[in-house]
């Protein structure tokens, strides 16, 4: 027999969009239930990028792939705090040009950078953003130096962390994730958090939403609520809406930032243990593509060398000379659909020739920057590709990325239910209210009208804050 919970407002999903929406509603005195499929784990319960973190915090253990003419691996957090718990917390405010473009293409009201500024300010006062004090790690500096030699613009990007020196004088960072910022505020304001609970669908009955859910122990649960906010992420929000029979402009326009990684090897040691995460990004070619450096722990290096296993001995013996770098673009289109009789949604990817050309162009520029900073070997994440040692090797790289050989991935997913007044393309109005459906709102990255070019978390937080304030006003 199903248990029943009755509440005024239910927010489904506790990532950046859901946590901020729920906290602001609770702080405004509303009765709010926040439902999360994953567990409520303390920050630092497991090491970053470890086997345990993958098991505990990643949806489907990170084995999630979009299929199509190219395969694109993606990861989503499934834990209280959502993606903010598993990402590196690189932080940007979105460019005004991107917002202006969204305003034109989707007819979004009141979405200029001036409109969003108070919401960025409000979010950043809770989820604090820090510049790295002191000298960045060598893996990061190498990319920066290469870009500088070529005259390209390279920035040190702030992160959603608080830096602190430990007893050994070593700099450590504390992540400013939702579980340490907005979720505690939500709970302090009297909100109720229901973790380990999966929502399968919802329907309207007698003027209320009836939400079908299952708790961790398999116990069915019905949530009866006046108002529903969906914040399950850019894949699971449209999947839940479609399972619930709401399909207009839902899940047709998923966008993402395709990323291709390389491993670069230098003569000197650059990859030292116990240093902070890399912070540089080369933005010379924004919005076409950007270049960056990644965490380069040895298991991650080995994973990135999977396409070049004949050189795995380099990881074994010279891993301190190696770092992981990436190019990230804005191309790529996808849809989200449920598969009959199955629980998990299917993501179908389309990378057209210009998208593949952009990634290939980004790869060439990344290799150029790394060679300029002294890389002696670059191993691209393309099956069967040659190792790059010189500019002549870069010139031989394909102009269009081979979609069946490239190991593309993405950390940034959005736009599956875009907002705006253009009812032909948009799922919600300019403030996240689902078109044609009363008391149903979307409050996550699904709303964004296209690629953010920069890391989307800041924009997701600011837009969620803007929309919930609009609702409360």
């Amino acid at each position, binding site marked *: 027999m199903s248990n029943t919970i009755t509440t005024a407002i239910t927010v489904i999903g506790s990532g950046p969009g859901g946590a901020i929406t729920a906290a602001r509603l609770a702080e405004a005195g509303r009765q709010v239930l926040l439902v999360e499929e994953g567990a409520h784990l303390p920050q630092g319960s497991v090491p970053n990028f470890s086997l345990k973190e993958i098991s505990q915090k990643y949806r489907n253990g990170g084995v999630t792939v979009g299929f199509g003419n190219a395969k694109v691996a993606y990861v989503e957090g499934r834990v209280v705090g959502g993606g903010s718990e598993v990402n590196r917390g690189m932080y940007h405010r979105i460019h005004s040009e991107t917002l202006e473009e969204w305003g034109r293409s989707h007819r979004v009201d009141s979405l200029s950078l001036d409109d969003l500024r108070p919401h960025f300010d409000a979010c950043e006062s809770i989820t604090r953003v820090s510049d790295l004090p002191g000298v960045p790690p060598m893996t990061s500096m190498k990319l920066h130096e290469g870009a500088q030699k070529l005259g390209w613009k390279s920035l040190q990007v702030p992160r959603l962390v608080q830096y602190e020196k430990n007893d050994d004088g070593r700099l450590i960072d504390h992540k400013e994730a939702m579980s340490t910022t907005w979720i505690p505020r939500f709970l302090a304001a009297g909100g109720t958090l229901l973790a380990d609970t999966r929502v399968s669908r919802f329907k309207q009955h007698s003027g209320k939403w009836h939400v079908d859910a299952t708790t961790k122990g398999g116990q069915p649960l019905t949530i009866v609520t006046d108002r529903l906010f969906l914040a399950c992420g850019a894949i699971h929000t449209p999947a839940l809406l479609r399972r619930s029979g709401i399909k207009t402009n839902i899940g047709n326009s998923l966008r993402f930032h395709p990323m291709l990684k390389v491993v670069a090897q230098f003569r000197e040691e650059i990859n030292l243990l116990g240093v902070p995460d890399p912070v540089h990004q080369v933005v010379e070619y924004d919005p076409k593509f950007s270049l960056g450096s990644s965490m380069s722990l040895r298991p991650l290096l080995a994973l990135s060398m999977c396409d070049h296993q004949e050189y795995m001995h380099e990881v074994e013996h010279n891993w301190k000379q190696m770092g992981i770098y990436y190019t990230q673009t804005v191309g790529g289109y996808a849809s989200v659909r449920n598969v009959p009789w199955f629980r998990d949604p*299917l993501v179908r990817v389309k990378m057209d020739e210009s998208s593949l050309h952009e990634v290939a162009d980004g790869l060439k520029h990344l290799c150029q920057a790394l060679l300029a900073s002294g890389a002696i070997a670059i191993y691209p994440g393309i099956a069967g590709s040659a190792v790059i040692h010189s500019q002549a090797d870069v010139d031989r790289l394909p102009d269009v990325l081979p979609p069946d050989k490239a190991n593309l991935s993405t950390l940034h997913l959005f736009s599956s239910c875009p907002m705006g007044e253009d009812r032909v393309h948009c799922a919600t109005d300019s403030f996240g209210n689902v078109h044609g459906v009363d008391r149903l709102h979307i409050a996550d990255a699904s709303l964004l009208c296209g690629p953010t070019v920069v890391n989307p978390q800041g924009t997701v937080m600011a837009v969620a804050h803007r929309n919930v304030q609009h609702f409360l006003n």
Partner: protein
Amino acid sequence: MGLDFRQCSSGIVGAAVANLCDEIKSPDRLQTHEPLEFVLSQYDRMPDYLRLPFKLIAWIFDAAPILVHGRPFHKLSLATRQQIFLNWKNSSLGFKRDFIRFFDTLVIFAWYSEHELTT
């Protein structure tokens, strides 16, 4: 013929670890316990619509050597398993490469993660 997915996976993981150890010239580090457990747990976590086709390919992979070698993959010698593993890894057919890549990436990540903990 039924498929014992654990046995089949164990055979593949053994071949993947042996390949890795050949590449890094460390024949004494053929530990497969942690990678095998990780592979099996990741199989359980993968999207549900992928599990059935994945298991079907695993069945084909395990059964195919019977025609040539007279026994399923998981009962072959390590050297023969390594050879078959590499044949699939370098195949022109995408589904073969993808199947092996699933094992290869998880094994490499788990093997190095375990190695980091013990060194």
